């Protein structure tokens, strides 16, 4: 089940609070604590990994992922199922996020763009997945919630290898 955050609040979100939230999310993903990750989201939140660059209408374009709450849950269920050979053999990851920039700062909403580097290791092959990531973080009662995450891989429009974990 996705989380049902309390009604949104209009209090301003400090950049430092958003950064700590983002680092917390990164830590959950590297630890593959996907159930906790699901609870970070708003009901209407979107998890998007575009193929092309400079896409404005993600719904009208082909994406690597374009998940609403139901699809995020299905994705986590699949990764957890023990039935997917790529998920069971997923690479280990260590990710770092930095270069945080405010994109939109309104009461109760902070959009942050940042750089993400995922070091990935699988069967003697190491690689780095670099991306610009945009987060829309909203205040939901006394906590923050994720309303949009767009991961623009630096090579999204070139060939990828299979990815058995969450970016």
């Amino acid at each position: 089940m996705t989380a049902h955050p309390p009604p949104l609040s209009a209090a301003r979100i400090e950049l430092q609070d958003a950064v700590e939230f983002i680092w917390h999310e990164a830590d959950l993903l590297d630890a593959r604590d996907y159930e906790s990750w699901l609870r970070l989201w708003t009901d209407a939140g979107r998890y998007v990994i575009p193929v092309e660059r400079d896409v404005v209408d993600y719904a009208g374009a082909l994406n690597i992922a374009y998940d609403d709450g139901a699809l995020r849950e299905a994705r986590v269920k699949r990764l957890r199922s023990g039935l997917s050979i790529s998920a069971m053999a997923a690479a280990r990851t260590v990710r770092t996020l930095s270069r945080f920039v405010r994109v939109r700062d309104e009461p109760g909403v902070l959009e942050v763009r940042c750089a993400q580097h995922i070091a990935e290791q699988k069967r003697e092959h190491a690689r780095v997945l670099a991306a610009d990531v945009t987060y829309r973080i909203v205040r939901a009662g006394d906590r923050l919630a994720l309303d949009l995450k767009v991961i623009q891989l630096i090579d999204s429009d070139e060939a990828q290898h299979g990815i058995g974990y969450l970016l």
Partner: protein
Amino acid sequence: MLHELPVTRPAIDYGALVRDDRIHTSLYREAPIFEAEMDRIFSNVWVWVAHTSEVPEAGSFKTTFVGRQPVIVTRDRAGDLHVLLNRCRHRASIVCEPKSGKAGAFVCPYHAWSYNLDGTLRAVPRDSAYTAEFDKADYPLVSLRVEQYGGMIFATLKDDIEPLASFLGPARTWIDLFMKQGAGYGIKVAGEHTFRFRGNWKIQLENTTDAYHFPIVHKSFLTSLDDQTGEQFDILKQGGWVEDLGNGHSVMVMMPHLIDLEENLDAPIPERFAALADELALEYPPHEVKRIVRAVGGTGFNLNLFPNVACSMSFFRVLRPIAVDQTEIRHVALAMDGGPEAGNRARLRIHEYFQGPMGFGSPDDAEGWERVNRGAAAGDDLWILLNRGADATGGDVTAETGMRAAYQMWKRTMLA
């Protein structure tokens, strides 16, 4: 004194490596065989390069590969298609860098030799330094033979090859059926997922006609579906079959009721398309809604065309051999050209669900293929079995008939 080292390898007996019901593992792992394939197969048969919607008007171009050779697919001012080696005749630089776009000419970035859309050499800067014998007409971009069927554009480096129509043979009927998912609007390319796996290209070629793996490798996909859709994708129980179409082509029919999308239009709309049907009903009459919805889900078969493309249910699956143990695959999403936006969005979501590096299906395929590649390192004289359903005259969807067809074509082409 130096020992005399052998510098040439013994000739490979390609005929002995492919039997009726099995192939030798060296076909997956030997680099000299891969090199020979690039020459004997990819330079000698019709190779798929584009769909017409990717080069819709004069000046449209797309860059791609025939085997390992970079090419440009262009449409000239008269609307004619050309497939040109993407290499300047002067000093070999790539002349067209973008993946696609529109151009009036191709200008080499190195010394500015410029070429028309049909490949003819238009201008050479400071050409007075060349001798009087230098004739621009002698130095066009090298042009491949190009033909199309049903919007599928193929090119070949072999000038005296049979016409595309005869190379495709009975596969043409299946291309016609596949294109019906345009719902009368026609088909257009709507984006693509590109991914690579560490393994030989033929592992992928086989996979498109391999129903046997589906309930195993894609169990996590199958369990994620609603009951009705899950039943439909229980492809071993639908009465399907595999058919050898000649020249290495084959069709694997997984869902016989979805062969002809313009039939059975009176059937009830599946539950998973109910919301889409409601949305379409605001603008389209009931009969048209049923036609569009049925087309949105795609066909129930995989048409495998030797050597590099498949019309797979609702998308094109294109393979590009890179090295003996490295293959690139493009899963090309298709939409109705000018069709309803809601229907095309639904097609994109269906494509994303299974395909791509994070889809619910493709990563498991890729993981399986890489394990084949790693396992194939074992054994000195072991074979890959293709004997499943060897007695089937058409009744078993898991028969390896399509693989046997492809490898017999492989053998004929390698020995030609």
